[in-house]
């Protein structure tokens, strides 16, 4: 695994020291998970989500009516930087 490339895909800026630490660890883990290849699974359906039969049968659609929401103040309350009702971030371009 090219750890630096994967880190970039994951939006992680990792250091050279971290590359040295992670590379063998990730190789070990990937080798371990590849033991699944011992199993023949062509005829097996994938298990999607984690739902039980009862969970899947539970109605999760509600009437389309206006309900209370968090509100702007609470939504912005934890922002590192908020200005005039907006999240403020460094320049995009």
């Amino acid at each position, binding site marked *: 695994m090219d750890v630096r490339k994967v*880190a970039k895909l994951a939006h992680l800026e990792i250091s050279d020291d971290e590359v040295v630490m992670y590379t063998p660890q990730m190789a070990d883990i990937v080798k371990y998970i590849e033991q699944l290849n011992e199993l023949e699974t062509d005829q097996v359906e994938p298990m999607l989500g984690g*739902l039980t039969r009862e969970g899947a049968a539970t109605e999760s659609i509600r009437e389309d009516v206006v309900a209370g929401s968090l509100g702007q103040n609470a939504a912005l309350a934890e922002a590192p930087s908020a200005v005039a009702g907006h999240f403020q971030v460094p320049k995009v371009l």
Partner: protein
Amino acid sequence: MAAAERLNPQLNSFLSIEHEHALRQALAVEERGDTPLGGMAVAIKDNICTKGMRTSCGSHILHNYRAQYDATAIERLNNAGAVMIGKTNMDEFAMGSSNESSAFGIVRNPWDVTRVPGGSSGGSAVAVASGVVRASLGSETGGSVRQPAALCGIVGLKPTYGRISRYGLVAFASSLDNIGIFGRTASDVADVLGVVAGHDPHDSTSADVAVPDYKFSLGADVAGKTIGVPRALFGEGLDADVRESVETAIENFRSLGAEIVDVELPHARYGIAVYYIIATAEASSNLARYDGARYGFRADDAPGLREMYFKTREAGFGPEVKRRIMLGTYVLSSGYYDAYYSKAQKVRNLVKMDYEQAFTACDAILTPTSPSTAFKIGERSDDPLAMYLSDIYTVSANLAGVPAISVPCGLSDNGLPIGLQLVGNFWSEDVLLNLASAYETAFPLGADPAVFVG
């Protein structure tokens, strides 16, 4: 509260102790009179949202985050008259089996403070084991309640997926995550479960299934119950004293009138591999939200938005979280998806089908909870794969979605607690609580930790 403060410098199980809140709640409960939990003191893992209070997930990236709403489980505890005294330490984003990956220091096991309490809900387990509270909430993705319960000598329940609403539980791996419950006894766990369980429109994965009165499950009678034992799993990697203690527990259950039968779970040994594909894939997606824009920590040395994301995540996450995000990104990346993620979903189905088959022949399946007793602090922290293997007996219940409980069943030669695990069929928490309560009544541990409120 005084006990929490007195013990915390030594054990570090609490990240915050909420005086004013607890006092207010206690007075309100007193005023209300009769409530289901009657002022029971509880502690809450720091990845469950509590309005206006810090909810850090054990991570630097949320070190200053205050939740803006209560999780459904918290709302229900409040309504039932619980008094929350604080938020508990945990492995960062619930990723770990020793509580050593917390950004806010390790938690110590009250039975031996040179050892880990287990994880990831180590703080919640220690809060109960040290006698500070009778019950606490933790969370489970692969064993994070049952394993620390075993290592700390208390009861820990992971309910059926969908039994307790996840609304307000910070997401790690959504198809595996559950809120779980610690108690000193099965009865404490039953009291809390009865209050927090049940359908919640805020969580579309919570199921509309009737919640029984768990009080009626408690008691000593297990006659007529059938317990399955998957002997093939009692092999490699299982410590001798854990094996011996669990073998004794099987005989003890027989003496209580349970019938013991052999069962097979042929795919359980692939559980860890499946888990570390599915859990990390879901985590890489769920943890994408921590980017410094809307809440929590932001690196302040970034000239542009993209640099802000990279620098915030680099400085905000610890090594175990980064490892898992990267592994999840890798298994989902173009060209690898079928080989890893899709394969894992198929094997996950095989694991579930094993359980469905086994439960045609028994009411519960008995195994050790953890292959070892509490290990020394630092012993496994450089070897992530060895740490992952601590979850060998617990992960498959999360993959299948079935409930499971850990119950103390003995002490090792060096005086550390050992836990047995009972896994039940979907929605059979009542059966698990019945077996657990019968066992602890007939065969109590009969010892307290070295650090204990008394």
